[in-house]
């Protein structure tokens, strides 16, 4: 398949059957914010605000570069924000203001 045909047929998440490196049997205990982010995903799903499938598509639509460079839960939180902007539930301004407020409360903390 040509490179462009492959790009059209495969979204960035669609990895099944591709060539890849050896498996590194790695794992890490979740950071507190990562665990909160996971719990947030579950709670958003219960309330039918963002379903698991919407989240999967939201991560996919971040594009190959973001998918490649952000960590697993960074992809999730960015995609949650994008989805709620699209749904008109949050605005980018609101989130930016809240982030500045949280940053002022906890200078230097990982948010």
């Amino acid at each position: 398949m040509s490179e462009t045909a492959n790009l059209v047929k495969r979204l960035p998440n669609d990895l099944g059957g591709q060539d890849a490196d050896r498996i590194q049997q790695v794992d890490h205990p979740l950071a507190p914010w990562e665990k909160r982010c996971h719990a947030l995903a579950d709670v958003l799903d219960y309330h039918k605000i963002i379903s698991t499938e919407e989240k999967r598509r939201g991560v996919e639509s971040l594009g190959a570069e973001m998918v490649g460079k952000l960590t697993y839960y960074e992809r999730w939180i960015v995609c949650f924000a994008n989805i709620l902007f699209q749904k008109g539930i949050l605005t980018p301004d609101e989130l930016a203001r809240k982030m500045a407020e949280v940053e002022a409360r906890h200078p230097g903390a990982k948010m």
Partner: protein
Amino acid sequence: METAFRELLVDKKLIGPGEIRRQIEVLDSRTPALGAKVVARAWVDPSFRARLLANGRIACEELGISFYDDTELIVLENTEKVHNLIVCTLCSCYPRAVLGLPPDWYKAKPYRARAVKEPRAVLAEFGTVIPDDVEIRVSDSTAVVRYLVLPQRPAGAEDYTEEQLAALVTRDAMIGVIPVTLNAGSQP
């Protein structure tokens, strides 16, 4: 960003203030020990095994394991002729209600890309060599359908109690990348 996002949702009353903390408690309560309990029960109780293979979710609920999400659970039985392996090629879907959260390698590209194309090579990287006359079936999970492997009961464990059996069953055996052996209990 996570803190700001969460606080905004609470301010807008879209989620309750304690919900995230309560869900963290649910997540913390899920470990591979639950899956191991299910597997051990299936080994000692043929009627439970039949119910488990017919409907994984209902059988797990029978053991008091609740499903906190809207997923179906299909349990795949390993036999002399078939070895099962689970993967999520699109993302990281996993039977979280019974195994907890997946390990990083399950979520990373090499496992997701290669498990469906060259499962024998992938298994070999976990030290598992499946004889050529045993079929390997790879099941690809989705947002709503999750799988759990029911490994073969190891030879030599005929006299073990259900509890002793459960202690042998590891997370990786229930993903299907390793068999259950008599000395595997020390793995995560």
